[in-house]
């Protein structure tokens, strides 16, 4: 019991998740339903995947605003390339080069972001703000403002498929969440992520090559943004040039709700998971209660500020106790 309480104090967002889960279960008859839970998981998986990478980047003390545009580019590439005539004879295998190209675009854009941050020393906020505008422009140039549709139904079938009782996309998300959690909490790279974000100078003095290290995390978030673009487009069987707009804001909201500090040095995947679920459950629950969409935004914004205020109060008291 005591352990559970300290755990909850360290991850207050899960207390909030529990609270809204109970609230919607009691107040809405359609909420507490396995099918609805599956919906929530699938809806969350898109933001969730990006949030995994964003957590690493933000613990580093950086940020990536270009994830929404990267998502759109990857989705457009994946759907367009699988329809190329070269691959016409490949059958369902034609999907593979499309998906690989999409993922590769994310990795390359992430590497480019990281490389510029490393070599120029310009703040990641500025670099990725530029990338956000520029990549979105690329998407419109590439797609000529057109939406693409996946002609191969195997692609959209994947988005609707299940592994056992769980939707494939949810399984994919949870699997990557586990991998990222292990990466962050158990590996050398994860430890260095905290060190670089916690005190960059001390990290340099400890022999950590900070530039290449940060580049790897930008590559990871780029990969996840591209992957999220692909999974999102399998859900819709299509991509639009405006796909993923404002996703960078939703992702950052989720990560911050999960307890990651904007200044870097602290944060966990478990917290991020809570943040992502909190947003997913709130949107789903209010939707079921037929709260109009714009009111949902007002409520979510208010909750973001309220939760962070609460978190600040909690940590402030914790610090006061420790100071002698």
């Amino acid at each position, binding site marked *: 019991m005591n352990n559970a309480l300290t755990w909850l104090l360290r991850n207050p967002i899960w207390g909030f998740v529990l609270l809204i889960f109970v609230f919607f279960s009691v107040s809405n008859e359609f909420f507490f339903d396995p099918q609805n839970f599956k919906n929530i998981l699938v809806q969350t998986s898109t933001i969730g995947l990006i949030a995994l990478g964003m957590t690493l980047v933000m613990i580093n003390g950086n940020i990536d605003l270009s994830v929404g545009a990267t998502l759109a580019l990857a989705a457009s590439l994946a759907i367009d390339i699988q329809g190329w005539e070269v691959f016409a004879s490949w059958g369902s295998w034609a999907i593979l080069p499309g998906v690989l190209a999409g993922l590769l675009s994310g990795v390359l854009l992430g590497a480019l972001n990281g490389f510029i941050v490393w070599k120029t020393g310009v703040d990641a906020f500025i670099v990725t703000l530029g990338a956000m505008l520029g990549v979105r422009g690329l998407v419109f140039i590439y797609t000529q403002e057109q939406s693409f549709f996946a002609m191969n139904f195997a692609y959209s079938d994947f988005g609707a498929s299940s592994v056992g009782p769980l939707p494939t996309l949810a399984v994919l998300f949870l699997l990557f969440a586990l991998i990222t959690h292990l990466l962050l909490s158990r*590996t050398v790279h994860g430890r260095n992520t*905290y*060190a670089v974000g916690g*005190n960059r100078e*001390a990290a*340099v003095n400890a*022999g950590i*090559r900070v530039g290449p290290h940060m580049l790897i995390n930008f590559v990871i978030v780029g990969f996840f943004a591209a992957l999220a673009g692909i999974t999102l487009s399998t859900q819709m069987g299509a991509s639009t040039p405006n796909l993923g707009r404002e996703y960078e804001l939703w992702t950052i909201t989720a990560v911050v709700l999960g307890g990651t500090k904007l200044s870097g*040095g602290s944060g966990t995947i478990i917290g991020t998971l809570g943040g992502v679920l909190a947003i997913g459950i709130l949107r789903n629950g209010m939707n079921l209660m037929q709260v109009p969409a714009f009111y949902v935004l007002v409520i979510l914004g208010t909750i973001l500020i309220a939760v962070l205020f609460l978190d600040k109060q909690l940590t402030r008291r914790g610090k006061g106790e420790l100071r*002698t």
Partner: protein
Amino acid sequence: MTDQTPALRLDGIVKTFPGVRALDGVSFEVLPGECHALLGENGAGKSTLMKVLAGMHQPDEGRIFIEEQEVVLPTPLDAKAKGVVLIHQELSLAEEMTAAENIFLGELPRKRFGMVDWKTLFARAGEILKKLNCDFGPETKVSRLSIAKKQMVEIARALTVDAKAVIFDEPTASLTDAEKVVLFDIIRDLKADGVGIVYISHRMDEIFTISDRLSVLRDGAYRGTLVTAETDEDEVTRLMIGRSLDYSRNVQHAELGDIALEARNLSCDPLFRDVNFHVRQGEVLGFYGLVGAGRTEIAETLFGLRHPSSGQILLDREEVHVASPADAIARGISLVPESRKEQGLVLGMNCRDNMTLPQIGDLTAGPFVANGAEIAIYDQYRDRLEIKAPSWRSIVGNLSGGNQQKIVIGKWLAMKPRVLIVDEPTRGIDVGSKSEIHNLIRELARSGYAIIVISSEMPEVLHVSDRIVAMYQGRVMREFTSDEVTEDNLVQAISGIGGERAA
């Protein structure tokens, strides 16, 4: 003296934080025109007492009197309005504003419609700066001032009100000796004007230079007040830590081994030029000089943080080019940096993670970090350095300065370096931990490490070093063995007088 009305008097102050009794019935007074030093180890309650005085904390029990009028000080602004001003240890100035704006921050003179009255502002700020003998004008941007001058701005802030008591918290922490002299003159001027001074410092020599009386705190309790002229360092130390300290000259030399590290005509323009020295295994080489003499820059060059403009670095008699800290670490050079909080530690991380940070890449089992191996290393160095932390999970930011420094030293010892460079080994550390760290450095030398110690404190350099390199403005002025060095010739060498250039 005693029949005077105290400028500030505390009576039976008690302050508790959850689980800690930080102040346990402390009484204290400062008379007008008196400099009253407040001493105690880290955690003794000095900071808490100071915050009570300045209105940042409210006492649970006890009373505060200003000129024998009982007062309540709910905020720092109230305290200032009543004439009690705190000069912060960490400068809290708005860097991008002018000195004048900083001096009157929060109470800028106004004209109609809330416009700033610049004329009055600059005139009044200029007066105060002139009174402090500052050589910069009120319109100077603070970011362009040196640390010492920023401190002048901080002091000037205190003088905008009719100050009755001014509290200095470790004011000399980042000042050079020359700048200290200026600060002490200002303190004497304030005393002459009848202001009571509360002077908090770790540095015994300063306290004996500037204070009239001193009071000692230990573990949150008041231990006594002494008249400075009638006591000595020994008595004060005993009062502070409950035992006396050995601060003698280093005479015992270890068995010296081969030359571990040598610098030949090493230069890094314009920071230092044509520097020659070597250090053997089992030897402690001290670097002494004023702030800005180029000592830290030499250490940074050896560690790969700077690249030399000319000259050679030889490791085990072979020339090496140290490209980066990672490269230096791989070659067996370790640096305990000058400022442990900014450069040495990740304060939000736990003890173990900090200690294993440079070698964590080698502590793996499969793809993961090997927990057991990490804890084993932490335990080994915790025991060897007698680090006092509740557990390896304790967050380093919550430890005392001495224990934090031991974590940094342990971190580098665990790398089993051939050369250990320690920059300001005991800056901001209390007296008890200081001597522990000095003993540790001597013991490490005996066990065969080649050690370079950089320090601004003369007793420290004299105490730990086998040989001392004296630097002045980026050049080596002279090299002393511990037999030939005296305080006089050392001071002359670092001031650029009388010292012969070393060959």
